[in-house]
């Protein structure tokens, strides 16, 4: 996106827009694809349709120049203040009954000056306070200095809110009409537009004027001779070719026509470098360019007006270099593969060579920096060496300066892709590369160079040498595209007759030719249009491009709004998405907050997760398929997917586990709140050996810390959440997905965790891991000294379960019998072993089993623990008798004794 500023006063040079409300103009351009982001009002009161409140407007935007207080004035007499050396008295005519006297200290005014046109403010005028920061307005008060009354003021740009410039007073052109309200003479609105990269042709006043002319169906004013000369010419092949100079002044050699298809040079003799007149400076400033001197200003002016960047060389310096080279200092061989066709003649002439940079070549650009060049960059060189990076920046050595007498003006065309690459590689974005890098027509060079040369001569008192050195090895050709109303209808869904298509395209300066139907259908209407893109349109190559042109001129609002009547594609059940959202719902139901963290992490995050180890030993996939990876997978940060151009080291690679960001989130939140229960469903990125792209499995991470209950008057249970809270969440999740029966938990040892850690497997395959963080990890993440339990699970196996059937178990209508069973077992016996023994022996009559107590202590021998279960027995076909239950119970006790050595307790 490229921003340009278009003063409407300048635009009006090319298309009449004085009757248009700037807002209306801005809206129409915006709808047509030239987005106006902002309007800056200069000396005008914003139109009533402008919504921005005054305090939000730009500097000076709020300052409409009062028509009865600010005028074009003329100084008819200037003399010294009799009692103040540094001050002048000036007499000003401004259209009032009698002239007024003002006291001024303006540095650009001298005693004796007369006939100067100024911006004149009478007492009471509202102006910008020149000594205040920013834009503060003040009212001009009458003042007396050493006995003499000042009756008004000659204004600076700052006082008028035009710019920050307060060095001297504004000097208006000599033909400025005295007495005209200043708002009418100098008032303006500047459209600030942000243009998409396809609109290279519009990055200038003329380009915008062309759009306005087409959109409002108004003629383009072709008042400039250069513009008049090319009026109506569409095909580059038909463009007028410039005359060769009678006396050659330069030789041009293009060695790399693929990078520089055209190079032209014009000579302007006897210029006098100095400041530009106010109107030029005013337009440049409004367009956002700082005035420098008349020669440079002329190049910038034409770039802003026509879109063709040009470069001004000091011709004498080029000559000196040519002579030096001839004397044997130079290194350039002159073998013109493609030149302007002259043989070098006496006396010595500068030779300009377009070639690729040599390896290791350097050059000092005019910003004073030495640039390292590479062979894919286009250099502009002479026989002594590089003098500019083509289309990017000129060299310091041949730059115009105060002593410059003759200017060699370059207007050339460059390959836009190469230009963009070079300016990026050298980090040299400029107004010129903003244009060259998006592609501009080689045909623009000649009219723009002519405009620029004449302007330079006009501003700097020089003389344009007749004729142009033009080297054009790769001429541009017209794009020709055929289009039919049927195709327009097929894409837009709107009927546009051939005649209207033709009319619109012709407004946009396309040449349109009707192709008669084939002989056998001669009676039919003409349905095919052969369209030739005008020379300045490099963005058109296929019918769709023309369809967009038609649509945007008609207006997108005119296209109907319909509901698709095309066939509905085959629909499918998206199990992956449905199950992901189901997991999300279940975890939210379990009281966890859904969260999303950055996929980009810093290297230290994985290191911190392994803080419990002296020297971290990272996990690896070790050749396993991603689905079989045991979690967590804390990979070596050096092996993660890494960014070439990170914004910050804290986000320079892609995470391999969700747990780093999860623990970070835990730590950050525990600083603010006492209880955190979070989960995230997100991707991790695992580099796979031999693959360009990483695996991107989705994982589920859970983190719990803080009291079990959110403390409140009703539940003041501040027991901390621990491993079993986390395991409970996972059990609940698995149970609800119908997976709990096929899940097993086994102890895990991983440096991330302390002793309370487990792996969870699903049908023997790794599903994930859960545990309480190792204290060293807690410290590494700056977590408070409290329990923190985290888990990471693969999403895919959970997702796969969603379509599994859950079969109903019949409900028994016979009464159930409840019994308690208290056991004494060795510490080494796991709850799972006990439970399995009970279930196996209990058979179908055992309907439910709940561990209700786990006890170690006084009544239990050392090395033993007591487990107490509540058992529920029930039959489907009869009322169980005590004897039935007793039989099963005995079987259970016997089995417990055999398998886990359990004894009945008490």
């Amino acid at each position, binding site marked *: 996106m490229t921003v340009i500023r278009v003063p409407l006063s300048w635009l009006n040079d090319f298309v009449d827009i004085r009757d248009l409300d700037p807002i209306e103009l801005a809206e129409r351009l915006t709808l047509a694809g030239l987005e106006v982001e902002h309007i800056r009002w200069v000396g005008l009161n914003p139109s009533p349709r402008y919504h*921005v409140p005054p305090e*939000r407007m730009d500097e000076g935007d709020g300052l409409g120049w009062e028509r009865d207080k600010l005028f074009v004035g003329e100084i008819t007499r200037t003399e010294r203040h009799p009692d103040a050396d540094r001050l002048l008295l000036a007499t000003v005519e401004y259209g009032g009954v009698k002239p007024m006297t003002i006291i001024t200290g303006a540095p650009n005014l001298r005693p004796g000056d007369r006939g100067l046109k100024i911006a004149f403010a009478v007492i009471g005028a509202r102006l910008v306070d020149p000594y205040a920061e920013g834009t503060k307005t003040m009212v001009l008060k009458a003042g007396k200095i050493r006995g003499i009354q000042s009756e008004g003021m000659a204004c600076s740009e700052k006082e008028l809110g035009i710019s920050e410039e307060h060095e001297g007073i504004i000097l208006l052109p000599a033909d400025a009409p005295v007495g005209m309200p200043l708002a009418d003479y100098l008032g303006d609105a500047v459209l600030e537009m942000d243009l998409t990269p396809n609109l290279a042709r519009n990055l200038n006043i003329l380009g915008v004027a062309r759009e306005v002319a087409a959109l409002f169906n108004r003629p383009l004013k072709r008042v400039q001779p250069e513009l008049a000369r090319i009026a109506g010419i569409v095909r580059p092949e038909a463009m007028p070719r410039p005359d060769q100079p009678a006396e050659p002044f330069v030789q041009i050699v293009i060695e790399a026509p693929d990078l520089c298809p055209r190079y032209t040079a014009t000579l302007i003799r006897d210029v006098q470098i100095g400041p530009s007149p106010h109107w030029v400076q005013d337009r440049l400033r409004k367009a956002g360019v700082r005035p420098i001197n008349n020669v440079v200003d002329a190049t910038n002016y034409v770039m802003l007006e026509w879109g063709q960047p040009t470069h001004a060389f000091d011709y004498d310096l080029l000559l000196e270099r040519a002579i030096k080279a001839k004397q044997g200092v130079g290194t350039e061989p002159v073998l013109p593969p493609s030149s302007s066709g002259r043989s070098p003649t006496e006396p010595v002439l500068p030779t300009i060579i377009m070639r690729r940079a040599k390896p290791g070549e350097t050059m000092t650009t005019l910003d004073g920096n030495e640039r390292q060049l590479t062979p894919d960059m286009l250099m502009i060189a002479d026989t002594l060496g590089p003098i500019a990076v083509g289309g990017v920046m000129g060299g310091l050595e041949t730059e115009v300066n105060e002593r410059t007498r003759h200017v060699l003006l370059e207007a050339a065309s460059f390959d836009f892709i190469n230009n*963009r690459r070079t300016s990026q590689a050298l980090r040299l974005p400029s107004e010129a590369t903003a244009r060259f890098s998006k592609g501009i027509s080689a045909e623009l060079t000649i009219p723009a160079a002519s405009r620029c040369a004449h302007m330079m001569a006009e501003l700097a008192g020089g003389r344009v040498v007749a004729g142009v050195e033009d080297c054009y090895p790769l001429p541009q050709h017209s794009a020709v595209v055929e289009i039919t109303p049927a195709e327009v209808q097929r894409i837009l869904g709107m009927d546009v007759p051939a005649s209207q298509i033709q009319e619109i395209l012709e407004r946009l300066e396309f040449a349109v030719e009707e192709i008669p139907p084939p002989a056998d259908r001669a009676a039919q209407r003409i349905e095919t249009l052969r369209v030739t893109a005008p020379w300045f349109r490099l963005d058109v190559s296929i019918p769709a491009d023309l369809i967009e042109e038609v649509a945007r001129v008609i207006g997108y609002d005119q296209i109907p709004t319909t509901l698709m009547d095309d066939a509905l594609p085959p629909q499918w059940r998206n199990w992956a998405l449905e199950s992901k959202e189901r997991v999300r719902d279940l975890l*939210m139901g379990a009281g966890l907050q859904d969260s999303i963290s*950055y*996929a980009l992490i810093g290297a230290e995050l994985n290191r911190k997760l392994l803080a419990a180890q002296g020297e971290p030993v990272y996990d690896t996939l070790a050749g396993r398929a991603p689905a079989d990876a045991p979690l967590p997978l804390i990979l070596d940060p050096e092996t993660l997917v890494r*960014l070439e151009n990170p914004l910050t080291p804290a986000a320079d690679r892609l995470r391999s586990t969700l747990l780093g960001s999860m623990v970070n989130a835990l730590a950050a939140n525990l600083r603010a709140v006492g209880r955190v229960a979070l989960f995230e469903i997100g991707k991790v990125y695992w580099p796979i050996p031999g693959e360009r*792209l990483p695996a991107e499995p989705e994982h589920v991470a859970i983190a719990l810390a803080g009291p079990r209950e959110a403390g*409140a008057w009703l539940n003041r249970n501040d027991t901390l959440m621990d491993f079993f809270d986390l395991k409970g969440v996972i059990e609940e999740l698995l149970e609800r997905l119908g997976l709990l029966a096929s899940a097993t938990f086994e102890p895990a040892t991983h440096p991330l965790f302390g002793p309370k850690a487990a792996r969870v497997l699903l049908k023997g395959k790794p599903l994930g891991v859960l545990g309480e963080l190792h204290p060293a990890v807690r410290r590494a993440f700056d977590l408070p000294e409290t329990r923190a339990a985290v888990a990471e699970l693969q999403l895919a196996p959970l997702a796969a379960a969603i379509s599994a059937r859950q079969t109903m178990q019949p409900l028994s209508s016979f009464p159930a019998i409840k019994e308690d069973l208290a056991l004494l077992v060795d510490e080494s016996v796991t709850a799972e072993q006990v439970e399995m023994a009970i279930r196996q022996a209990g058979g179908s009559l055992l309907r439910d089993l709940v561990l209700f107590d786990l006890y170690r202590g006084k009544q239990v021998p050392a090395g033993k623990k007591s487990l107490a279960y509540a058992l529920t027995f029930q039959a489907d076909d009869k009322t169980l008798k005590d004897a039935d239950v007793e039989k099963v119970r005995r079987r259970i006790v016997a089995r417990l004794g055999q398998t886990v050595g359990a004894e009945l307790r008490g």
Partner: protein
Amino acid sequence: MHDLQRLRDQALAGLAAAGDETALEAWRIQYLGRKGQVLELLRAIPDLPAAERPAFGQAANALKGELSAAFDERAQAVAQSKLAAELAAEGVDVTLPGRRPQLGRLHPSNQTLREINGIFAAMGFQVYTSPDVETDELNFELLNMPPGHPARDMWDTFYTTTPGVIMRTHTSPGQIHAMRALGPDKPIRVILPGMCYRYEQVTARSEMMFHQVEGLAIGRRITMADLKGVIVEFANQLYGAGRRLRFRCSHFPFTEPSVEADVDCILCRGKGCAICKYTGWLEIMGAGMVHPTVLRNGGYDPAEWSGFAFGMGPERITMLKHGISDIRYFFGNDVRFLEQFG
């Protein structure tokens, strides 16, 4: 007989004075118990002269009946007042906070994603996803942006250290993935939600990571008028019925014609405010007709097939919906932010 009358008066007075269950029971024993005064009277009947017996017996029995009834009535009244007193004691301050179950909440981005998915599902668009780490080819080249193309500047790209591998800057490569997976001779209607990455300074208004939802419809009769229809339908469902929409010409290398859709500002209703930068419009999505080159790259013949694509940012939609001023909250995981929504 005189005694009976006295006993009756005395008993009824005692009953009226019995205020609780204990006093009632004492009264019952005193008067109606086996050794109570009424039975004592009855038991004394044989000692009376024979002539007096029938009348006395009748009167005594009547007294017993009366006292029993009075007792039952009184007992019920006492029980009721006891219950009333108990209930009164249970009264609470109903303004005390309740016992809240702890339920988690959906991340605001995911809320919006669910909304978007739902709206498009009803129009026949199904969710299709593709990777975050993408090739330059898919992210740019096949989307009509050859290397060096100036339009690439529209997306500031994170490059990985593997040449040609980048973080996707938009969900648009999903268009090619979807076309190649579902095509080449079937219509397509999908949305492609996913995370995107941009090499952009993180500020209140721009993030290096954000969601995007791309949409793609391909068919033999899909037009720009259909695209407008889908956008209007979506905007009215998401932002409420009666929205005004504005369609501007724009440019994306992978669509032609391209369009930017604006909805009238939901905050100021089009009058102009700081959120809509005083334009009255909010940009909601970029869209366009799929470029023929992109159709071809996806395996579709652009002479027979046409399609549209659109893309939008759920975070931006969420910011507007909830008045969130800073995009950095989304992935900062501050529960004080997350717990404000849904």
